[in-house]
């Protein structure tokens, strides 16, 4: 008898989980419906049915969940919209404390990031003039706070915290140990690559609860995309705020230029890094992810442009003018193509059969590869002719890394379109490749300056 009761409870638990996935139904609704279901089950059992039979009949009587949810949505249409409330907006008292603590932690970290940006000024650094200091150190001042917030949220273990500390310490060395002139190539390279390397350190904090899982790594890819979108949105809002600060204060004869340049801009930009991270975490299940939507929009457009480029190149027959800018441009192009690929992978149903969109993606990747091979041929010719610089070497390295990724992705995509390989292979390839980017970024930041004589 107790075994039967346990089975029944397990079934109820399963049902609750199933129902909770419906956005239209709140926790209290689920409770109410569960009470209803239990009433129904009790009556059926009293009529002589076994527990599992009674449960089945009761659930069947309740009708399809779709229909139920639709009826609820008609009364509570607002639930399909907003839902991102600052304190979590939960009506379940059991979990009510956590969002509030989370909000507090977020505010703490955001303020910490904002203050960190201003601290170097106490020691004589100037945000507007000391590019050589602020460039390489920007990530070091801000990203630890985001990493701290995420690590706190994931209840990271000692090992992860240790790894994080080590990575950021290593970053501090890379940023400050080398004697780099403000106008050197290396200072720009270090600034960019250290930022990328430290972002992957944030990734370590993000996957703290299960570092080896490919699913968590893919979640970090999603997080990065959504974070970027949110950051841009916050920046736009900040721009509007700045305009109003200027406009209103100037009408009363005060000039806010100094305040905006020294406080509002740097502190806002730093704080927004944490706020955007928190937003992504808080709204995960609330709003449709926007990065994959953008991917869907732009994949066909980019494919068309790349194909048009190839055709034009073939028709005119001229060479590619590979200046340094051109190499960086094509690096960025590959990065964008990779991003388009990555974000549609992140949103794809792993079990769905290959469709026209997958073929379109294959076309995109193959045309990007073709263009890149042309560029690489041209650039290696030039490097052997004139020798190399840190910039060229970095750009070339990035190109090779992206090329390798895309080439193998194209192969896997082809296998998928021909139904030879599962989608999971492509997903695994991408998530396993992530550390390569981080590794290269560290190499450029740590090894390049001494290698090229701090040029």
């Amino acid at each position, binding site marked *: 008898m107790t075994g039967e009761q346990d089975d029944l409870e397990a079934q109820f638990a399963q049902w609750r989980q199933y129902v909770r996935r419906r956005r239209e139904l709140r926790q209290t609704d689920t409770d109410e419906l569960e009470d*209803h279901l239990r009433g129904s089950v009790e009556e059926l059992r009293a009529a002589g049915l076994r527990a599992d039979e009674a449960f089945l009949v009761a659930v069947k009587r*309740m*009708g399809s969940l779709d229909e139920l949810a639709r*009826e609820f949505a008609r009364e509570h249409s607002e639930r399909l919209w907003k839902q991102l409330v600052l304190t979590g907006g939960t009506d379940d008292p059991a979990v009510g404390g956590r969002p509030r603590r989370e909000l507090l932690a977020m505010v703490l970290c955001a303020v910490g990031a904002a203050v960190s940006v201003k601290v170097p000024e106490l020691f004589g650094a100037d945000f507007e003039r000391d590019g050589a200091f602020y460039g390489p150190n920007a990530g070091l001042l801000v990203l630890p706070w985001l990493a701290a917030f995420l690590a706190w949220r994931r209840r990271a273990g000692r090992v992860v915290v240790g790894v994080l500390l080590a990575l950021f310490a290593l970053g501090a060395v890379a940023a400050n140990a080398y004697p780099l002139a403000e106008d050197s190539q290396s200072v720009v390279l270090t600034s960019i690559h250290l930022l990328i390397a430290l972002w992957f350190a944030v990734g370590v904090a993000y996957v703290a609860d299960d570092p080896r899982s490919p699913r968590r790594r893919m979640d970090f890819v999603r997080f990065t995309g959504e974070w970027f979108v949110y950051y841009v949105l916050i920046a736009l809002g900040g721009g509007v705020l700045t305009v109003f600060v200027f406009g209103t204060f100037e009408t009363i004869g005060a000039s806010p230029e100094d305040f905006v340049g020294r406080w509002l801009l740097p502190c806002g930009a730093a704080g927004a890094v944490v706020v955007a991270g928190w937003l992504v975490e808080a709204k995960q299940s609330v709003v449709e992810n926007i990065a994959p939507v953008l991917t869907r929009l732009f994949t066909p457009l980019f494919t068309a442009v790349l194909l048009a480029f190839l055709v034009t190149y073939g028709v005119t027959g001229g060479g590619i003018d590979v200046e340094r800018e051109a190499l960086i441009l094509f690096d960025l192009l590959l990065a964008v193509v990779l991003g388009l690929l990555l974000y549609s992978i992140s949103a794809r149903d792993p079990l769905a059969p290959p469709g026209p969109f997958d073929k379109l993606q294959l076309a995109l990747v193959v045309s990007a590869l073709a263009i890149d091979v042309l560029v690489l041929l041209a650039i290696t010719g030039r490097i052997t002719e004139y020798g190399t610089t840190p910039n060229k070497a970095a750009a070339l390295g990035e190109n090779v890394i992206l090329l390798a990724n895309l080439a193998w992705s194209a192969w896997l995509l082809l296998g998928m379109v021909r139904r030879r390989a599962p989608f999971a292979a492509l997903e695994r390839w991408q998530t396993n490749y992530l550390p390569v980017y981080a590794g290269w970024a560290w190499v450029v930041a740590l090894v390049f300056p001494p290698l090229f004589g701090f040029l």
Partner: protein
Amino acid sequence: MKVAKDLVAASATPMVLGILAEGDSYGYAILKRINELSGGELDWTEGLLYPLLHRLERLGHVESSWQSVAGERRRKYYRITSGGLAELAEQRRQWDAVVGALKEIWPGSGETRPLTAVLRGGFA
């Protein structure tokens, strides 16, 4: 015979308010009571009942409270408010008019009463 969907929907509010006017109750019991009253001919679903209860709550016709029953189970009880009683009286007036008029045109369906008597004496 099952009552048409539109008619079920139209009569839902006075039905629920009427049942709650008898005493506080909760979803499952309300549904059972409706079944009992109509001899099973009113086809009510949970998708009709609970959103309706929530709407009535939002409009202030009923109020709800959670009470624990049997162990960890919680149950949401609904109570009719004075606003709900006023709404019920108004709905009842309207239904009386409809039922009275129908009885006038359908002679022979049960006892026939003059329309004025129906209006004065009510439906009960």
